[in-house]
């Protein structure tokens, strides 16, 4: 890929393309400040994801790799298993579908919320 193809975007000074990227970024910084992992540990985890080719040539897959690196690090630290995250992500998605437009999306809006709450 020619770098020139990327340059128009170089004028785009938005740090994040979508809000979730900013959230994932900030979660990582907050956890590092909390001392959950060192920055070297984080860089290693992120570079591992990027090396596996998850990042597109134009750098657009960068935050997907970021998120995946964070999930793996949290699993390694026994903070959240992939299963926990899958289940809760599905709950958030159901909640989003069940929430009328314009209302804040709350986890309680998930139709299966009661079940989820009882889960161990």
């Amino acid at each position, binding site marked *: *890929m*020619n*770098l*020139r193809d*990327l*340059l128009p*975007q*170089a004028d*785009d*000074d938005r*740090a*994040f393309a*979508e*809000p*979730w990227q*900013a*959230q*994932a*970024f*900030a*979660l990582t910084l*907050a*956890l*590092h*400040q*909390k001392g*959950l992992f060192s*920055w*070297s540990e*984080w*860089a*290693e985890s*992120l*570079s591992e994801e*990027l090396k596996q080719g998850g*990042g597109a*040539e*134009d*750098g*657009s897959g*960068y*935050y*997907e790799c970021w*998120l995946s690196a*964070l*999930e793996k690090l*949290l699993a390694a630290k026994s*903070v*959240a298993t992939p299963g*926990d*995250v*899958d*289940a*809760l*992500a*599905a*709950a*958030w*998605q159901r909640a*989003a579908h069940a929430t009328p437009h314009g209302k804040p999306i709350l986890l309680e809006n998930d139709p299966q919320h009661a079940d989820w709450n009882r889960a161990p």
Partner: protein
Amino acid sequence: MAARVRALETILTQKGLIEPAAVDAIVDTYETKVGPRNGAKVVARAWCDPGYSDWLKQDATAAIASLGYTGRQGEHMQAVFNTEDAHNLVVCTLCSCYPWSVLGLPPVWYKAPAYRSRAVIDPRGVLEEFGVHLPAQTKIRVWDSTAELRYLVVPMRPTGTEDLSEEELAALVTRDSMIGTGLALEPYQP
């Protein structure tokens, strides 16, 4: 993706590892308060004040912190000065370590595999694509950032700027000139 991030946030909040308000504050800081203007002030100060410039050469972490810009990751900073003989270019081949405290968040191309690999293999070619044409005798030094050490390029002060104030000089220092993929602007340029 958005649902997964929300899921993580929910778990981490429940476990008391994060506070949503603190996370929002970080987003706000990086979207609005931190950016390449910080680095530009460092460069302009170094252009105006030889004492500061020496300090920046010896101990960039402390010299930059003295202006109020400190890294959150405990990383060390090194300032690399461009001269007629040598031009400096910064890359992170591993991931995209970047001097956030002085430059904000990295641009898209800095995170792209194309830049991360080619900056090392063919720096002159990469610079040409960025519109930077260096004399053949100018050497190009490529600095590979790490989680512990990050680089700030101090571009050469443009000629004809002797009468400019530090503030006016800072306006000539672009983000790209501090990564090495650009030069400081000439004063007559917009």
